[in-house]
């Protein structure tokens, strides 16, 4: 709920001035429309930012000499992308083992990469960074801001946020049977989908058994145990219907046989629209991949622009993603636009790129809406958000202005 009246927070205890070299962190933003992602839109409203947090959201106008003023057409929360790869190369995935839960993606991220800047300019302020999906269980994904101090630790919103893995043919690419070849791990790893699924199942069963029999434990099995207990979300990449079904059946089997209650997220679930009942029944969230231009996308799956609407109508929680693609047409704000073109209403599309992924990643207390007390991650538009004619003219991350609307030509 939004306070209509001004509500000064304790966060307003700010030092009188700031040093020359410190970025400005106190802003007043006037907007014709403030889309809060909570279902409410304020017209002719203002947002106050103090010290990296949102301190006021209300209608009206009030200037203050301590805060710099920005005037824009529309404001939304900073976009949250639930599936992104930043310069992910072979060094991000530990190929010597198919199940490597303790490998942290954060260790392979480069804080100096220019990819971060591209993300910021697309309005994306929080991402879940993933490794390349060449392992069955690839490791621990990290949720972090796309701008801020040049250090992965300082930008991290939630370390070890998800246990990342893949169902499908990617982990079996390049593997080959052992006949007549020298032993290397490419000849040990699965060469089929069922082999991949078997690895998953074995990881779960061994982890569960290790509670009683320590011989069954393996490096990282403690993390798989936490995932079984629902303490660590599992994000499974599953492009095609058969992979989605496999993932859901596996989840249900684990619940049934091992007494676990894992929280599962399906990533890149392009064909989720074919199995909506299954998804509703098993209560899994879905992260959609970038909409393809001709329908065909990863691993032969098919999706059209109306799948977001279809899933939403069935009550399946969805989030849109861009996979960190370098193509301008795949960037996240355009994904929301494509979903709207496929029939999804504006509010639901906005939620699918803000609060819904934040909830899936467990960071909804900090990001995802324009509400008092949340991180000041805001996107400023010169028109209705997600329309092709509108541009992002400003971006704030933790209250620091990374893209300046005053420098944009109208």
């Amino acid at each position, binding site marked *: 709920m939004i306070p209509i009246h001004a509500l000064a927070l304790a966060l307003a205890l700010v030092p009188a001035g700031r040093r020359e070299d410190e970025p400005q962190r106190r802003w007043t933003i006037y907007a014709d429309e403030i889309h809060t992602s909570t279902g409410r839109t304020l017209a002719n409203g203002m947002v106050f930012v103090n010290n990296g947090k949102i301190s006021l959201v209300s209608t009206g106008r009030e200037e203050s000499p301590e805060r710099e003023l920005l005037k824009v057409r529309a404001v939304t929360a900073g976009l949250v992308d639930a599936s992104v790869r930043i310069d992910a190369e072979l060094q991000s995935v*530990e190929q010597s083992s198919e199940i490597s839960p303790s*490998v942290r993606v954060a260790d392979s991220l480069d804080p100096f990469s220019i990819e971060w800047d591209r993300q910021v300019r697309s309005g994306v302020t929080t991402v879940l960074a993933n490794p390349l999906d060449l392992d069955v269980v690839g490791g621990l994904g990290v949720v972090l801001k796309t701008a801020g101090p040049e250090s992965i630790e300082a930008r991290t919103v939630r370390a070890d946020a998800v246990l990342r893995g893949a169902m499908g043919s990617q982990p079996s690419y390049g593997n080959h049977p052992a006949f007549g070849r020298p032993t290397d791990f490419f000849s040990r790893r699965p060469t089929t989908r069922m082999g991949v699924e078997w690895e998953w199942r074995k990881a779960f069963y061994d982890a569960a058994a290790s509670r009683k029999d320590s011989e069954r434990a393996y490096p990282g099995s403690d993390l798989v145990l936490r995932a079984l207990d629902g303490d660590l979300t599992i994000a499974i990449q599953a492009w095609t219907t058969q992979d989605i079904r496999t993932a859901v059946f596996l989840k249900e089997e684990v619940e049934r046989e091992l007494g676990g209650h894992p929280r599962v997220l399906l990533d890149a679930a392009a064909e989720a629209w074919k199995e909506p009942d299954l998804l509703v029944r098993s209560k899994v969230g879905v992260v959609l991949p970038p909409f393809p231009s001709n329908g065909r996308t990863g691993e032969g799956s098919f999706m059209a622009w109306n799948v977001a609407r279809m899933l939403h109508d069935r009550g399946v929680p969805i989030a849109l993603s861009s996979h960190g693609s370098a193509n301008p047409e795949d960037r996240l704000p355009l994904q929301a636009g494509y979903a709207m073109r496929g029939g999804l209403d504006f509010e639901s599309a906005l939620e699918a790129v803000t609060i819904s992924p934040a909830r899936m990643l467990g960071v909804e207390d900090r990001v995802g809406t324009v509400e008092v007390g949340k991180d000041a991650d805001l996107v400023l538009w010169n028109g209705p958000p997600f329309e092709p004619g509108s541009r992002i003219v400003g971006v704030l991350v933790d209250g620091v202005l990374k893209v300046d609307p005053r420098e944009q030509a109208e």
Partner: protein
Amino acid sequence: MMITILALSAAASPLATHRAILAPESRLLAIRAEQVVLPDGGAPARGVILIEDGRIAAVGPDVEVPEGAILVEHRGTASAGLVALHSYSGSPSEMFDSTRSVLPEARVSLAFDPANPDFADALRAGITSIVLTPIPASLCGGTSALVKTSGGVVVRGEAQLSLGFSSLALRNNRFPTSFGGAVAELDRLFEEPEGVFARAAKREIPVLLEASSREDVARAIAFAQRHELTGAISGAAWAGELAEKIHSAELSVVCGPWRIGEERRDLLAVLALEKAGVPFGFAIDAPANHPLMLRAGAAMCLREGLGRATAWRALTSDAARIAGAEDRIGSLSKGLDADIVLWSGDPLDLGSTPQAVYVDGKLAWKDKP
């Protein structure tokens, strides 16, 4: 090796800078030089260095030359021997075991040949101590060794534990293939209760964090802070751009080696280290590089604005500290090893050259007049 020179007359030739009678063994040796470089590198003054049993007994302008001491007069500058921090002298092909990614018990001190001409090259360039390091192509290549360039003396057999944070430590067909996997494995190794990693975790032995890019440095700093390690970062030309973080983590840096035509950005990164108060020393990576580039690199940094005192410390006392031997080498102070170089002029000027080098109080090399 014994050098016997007979002084034929007191009126020595004006070109000679030494007037000495060297008897085979003498406990006492005194060197009187026109200028003596003090530990802070500044304001050299005329003085005497008194050496007893291979160690420095006294240094100063007012030191008396006792009876029975052999006196060496030097028309030039005397200073502590230089300390080079990262090299493969003596056995470049033996510094890397390719079968294992983690081999902490490997000791470089057992891998080098003191008779190798690399050491004579270093000695002639005024370097009296060198840290020999494993090649950073594995996750843990072993421990480095601090050795004297004359006599094959090993000062510190396990000077630093070498850990690989760059992509050189990764392979595409053997564990680890990823940075995440490498860090996870290191985390696990540092939990072990005994062994070399345990000693490093207890700060009994410093670590040498081998990096090549800034992201490697960032990762190495985070790791060192997580495990509260002490040590130095080596191999990244732009490490200095993260100087503040390195300072908060209380780590040091090994810079270089530089070459003629070195990029200015690399040299400016060294200035950033000075500004943040991070101690650093210089690498030479011989025999691929010539040991003279140690001083040449320092000269390049001086030209870009590095302070003289900082440059001198980087060549001597700070380098000794990074090598874990500041109680033995790196300055003309009482009680330290008598590793002394007699220069023709200011050692920070490339136009000066060593004319004699003493290691552990013995004359190790002398220039032909």
